[in-house]
């Protein structure tokens, strides 16, 4: 499946040069205490991704690498294509007739956008959390069991164990262990969102996409989800779209700044927020627009 253009594997020592769009200067991070990009495994890499809603192009030549076991924040003003970008990564955009993507999205060496790819498998491996908590119209238990039943043959007790495990890892078990047979929609907004996270991680994805997961819930619930992200990154590769720059700074190691469908800048979060290379990035993070 591998195309010759995909020179972004972990074996390349100086891969940063291809990590970002060519017009952006890459920071050569070698300061003490900071990790080198080249030490990291690339879990998913996007190459020359264009996207159209019908005739209107929403993404232009997006190229970026997402590192394994790291949190990458995606920031940018509203309408710049953040959601569009991450909706390509699990091919959920394909549900709509006139949504089209071109380019490459390489997950562990395979082009996700290629033909002959098992979309269902891609979607299991690349889980997604939506802006609005979206529990299924089922009980708490069934919400988690839903995905498990899709992919595994489990008996009752195995199923129970897996559900409990997922809820524990989503830091929700203690709050819902007595409510397993109540509707998932009866939980609070923050609990619903963690239920969705539990549901997603129950099927052992490799990448977890989160599209503004905290924008519909209160600050305390947001704090819990941020703690959870911190926990989960040991196991998963996490992408989080956020409107909130403090949140990006708190939870992520890497940040990508999107603007008008382009990835303007990508780099370590500390660097990007303290000393951005691009004027547009600086304007955005200092609140001059967006």
């Amino acid at each position: 499946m591998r195309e010759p253009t995909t020179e972004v594997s972990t074996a390349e020592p100086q891969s940063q040069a291809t990590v970002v769009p060519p017009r952006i200067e890459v920071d050569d991070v070698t300061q003490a205490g900071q990790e080198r990009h080249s030490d990291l495994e690339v879990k998913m890499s996007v190459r020359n991704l264009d996207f159209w809603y019908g005739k209107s192009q929403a993404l232009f030549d997006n190229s970026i690498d997402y590192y394994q076991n790291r949190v990458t924040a995606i920031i940018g003003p509203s309408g710049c294509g953040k959601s569009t970008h991450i909706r390509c990564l699990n091919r959920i955009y394909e549900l709509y007739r006139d949504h089209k993507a071109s380019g490459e999205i390489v997950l562990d060496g395979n082009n996700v956008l290629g033909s002959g790819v098992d979309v269902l498998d891609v979607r299991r491996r690349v889980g997604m959390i939506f802006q609005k908590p979206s529990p299924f119209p089922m009980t708490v238990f069934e919400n988690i069991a839903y995905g498990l039943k899709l992919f595994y043959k489990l008996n009752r007790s195995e199923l129970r164990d897996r559900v409990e495990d997922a809820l524990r890892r989503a830091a929700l078990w203690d709050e819902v262990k007595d409510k397993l047979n109540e509707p998932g929609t009866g939980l609070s907004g923050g609990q619903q969102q963690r239920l969705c996270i539990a549901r997603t991680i129950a099927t052992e994805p490799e990448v977890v996409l989160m599209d503004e997961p905290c924008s519909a819930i209160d600050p305390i619930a947001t704090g819990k989800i941020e703690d959870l992200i911190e926990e989960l990154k040991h196991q998963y590769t996490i992408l989080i779209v956020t409107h909130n720059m403090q949140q990006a700074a708190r939870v992520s190691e890497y940040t990508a700044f999107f603007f008008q469908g382009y990835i303007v800048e990508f780099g370590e979060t500390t660097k990007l927020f303290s000393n951005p290379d691009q004027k547009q990035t600086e304007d955005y993070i200092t609140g001059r627009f967006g």
Partner: protein
Amino acid sequence: MSDTGHSLNGGWRVRDMASRARRAPSSRTDTAFRGFTIACSLFIALLMLGITIALVEGSWESMREFGLSFLWTSDWDINKGVYGALTPMIGTLTTTLIAMGIALPLALVIALLLVELVHPVAARIIGTAVEMLAAIPSIIYGMWGLFVLVPIMQAHVIPWLQSTPLGQIPWLLGGPPLGVGILTAGLILAFMVLPFITAVSRDVLRMVPTVTKEAGYGMGATTWEVTRKVSFRYGFGGFVGATFIGLGRAFGETMAVAYVIGNSFTIPESIIAPGTTFASAIANQFPEAVGLQKAALMELGLILFLVTIVFQLIAQLWLGYVNKKVGIR
């Protein structure tokens, strides 16, 4: 079209709005509106009560004569003056069952096609075609049934059914293929209820939030898995509502059934035999009925009326229960 169909969904929305209005700070218009609503509900309750009283009064003679045994005796003899409701009851139940058995799966499939599977333009064409079915007056169904469907059933469908293994079961398909009968009536009814069930099911499926469906697909589920486990689950209460609307219509449908069921007051020996239903029995005999016969027909009307209301009540309670259980609103 689909007066009944839309009033179901309309009913939900109204109920939704009413609960919202209760929370909102009340104003003079609110009070006036509430007064108006209460007056309307009271009027409807009084109307129902009035109809019940009139039916009880009309059927009094028959009730006194036959008591509860009216419900399980099948004699219907004008010369001897004995009447029982069993035959129309069997006819009503079996035609309704056949109609729902055909219409319900078909309606769900069509609704699913319309909402999820076919191109929007095709969906609009199919949708309009199905809705047209609801606009056809029931007398036309009756005439079409008698002149087109009955000969086809007689010459092709029933003989074919009888040649299949199912044809060996006497109580199912035994007897001569007359064409008119329970099965033909059920089939006509299926056509008649199809647009209503389809319309409601389609609306129900459309109400499933995009994000909920996307979440299903996002888990790696197929269209069928999302539909079956998420959309149908979400719409379950609505489908039950749609079913009851179909049941109500099939139960009370008169003219179309009266044309094709054969109007026989002997207990049908199989589903291809002629029979009668509450509504078609009344329509057939009421104009010339006098005395006890008239009272017996009134009692059939009373049963029909009460059963329909009980259906409605069960439907409402059930909907409330299910929606609460799966947590929709």
